[in-house]
């Protein structure tokens, strides 16, 4: 159980690293939102699941309630993080921010 929790925590950290590196590497505003919003959500899911499993190792009612509360945080993040990503992208679109397209790069 602790090994599974460790694997989940480390893979969560890998997803977070990918999200941060992606923000730096992607070429324009809209494509930077993809790693920022999504990889961070996945990283949070893995990290919090790892923590919930760790809490559940010595099983008791208190531990079960703590794990349930951690999963409640995951549910909250899964609802609000895509909505926030959508709002940012929508705001950019309404403000008229130009998109980076692939043929733009060939003319560099």
């Amino acid at each position, binding site marked *: 159980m602790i090994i599974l929790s460790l694997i989940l925590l480390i893979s969560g950290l890998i*997803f977070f690293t990918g999200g941060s*590196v992606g923000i730096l590497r992607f070429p324009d505003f809209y494509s930077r939102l*993809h790693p920022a919003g999504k990889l961070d959500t996945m990283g949070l899911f893995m990290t919090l699941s790892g923590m919930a499993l760790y809490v559940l190792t010595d099983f008791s009612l208190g531990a079960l309630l703590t794990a349930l509360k951690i999963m409640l945080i995951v549910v909250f993040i899964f609802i609000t993080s*895509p909505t926030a990503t959508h709002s940012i992208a929508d705001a950019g*679109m309404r403000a008229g921010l130009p998109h980076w*397209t692939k043929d733009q790069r060939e003319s560099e």
Partner: protein
Amino acid sequence: MGLTNPEKRSLSPEDPSDTKGTKEYGRSSRTPLSTRALTFLVCMITWVILSGRFDLFHLILGVIASLIVAAISADILFPSPRVEALPRVWVGFLKYLPWLLYEVFLANLHVLYLTFHPRMKELIDPQVITFQSKLKDDMALLIFANSITLTPGTITLYVSVLSKYTVHAIDKKSAAALPGDMEKRVEAIFNDRPDLSSGGYVRGYRPGLCHA
């Protein structure tokens, strides 16, 4: 009460067959008892999970707080009068969730691969696509839009009232996956009951917007 007239679409506030006590316009006595009971149940379960104490004092506090919420704000949490059909939707949603998590995981691995690839700028091809969706219900549109944004490679930019989605996709592979399989699965949550899938669920209190 509730499902007596399934073919009636426009639930205006003056419609007497679906509400209780319509003598006064706009009074909270219009929300039916099933809505209040479901609100009370949801509040009570959340209270017990979050507090973790099962002694009588805290349980009675929870009951009082849930009763106050159910008395005042029951129509905010579940706006439609047809709450008897809701548990069916929840079960359908629970069946949809594992598939969604699996798809999210796979697509996240794809974006991770794109992020760490040394020649990423040749691989990505950001584009904005639009498509018309068959879903009519508010909750179905919400679940579909959130699933699109959760699945990496696509961000929902705009959803029109007539179910037209504008989506930003990061490469052709993610764009080709829409609408496809995901829309079929979201529709499957809502079309066990014909009165739910044609807009009778959440749109009951806005009669002008029913005819998509």
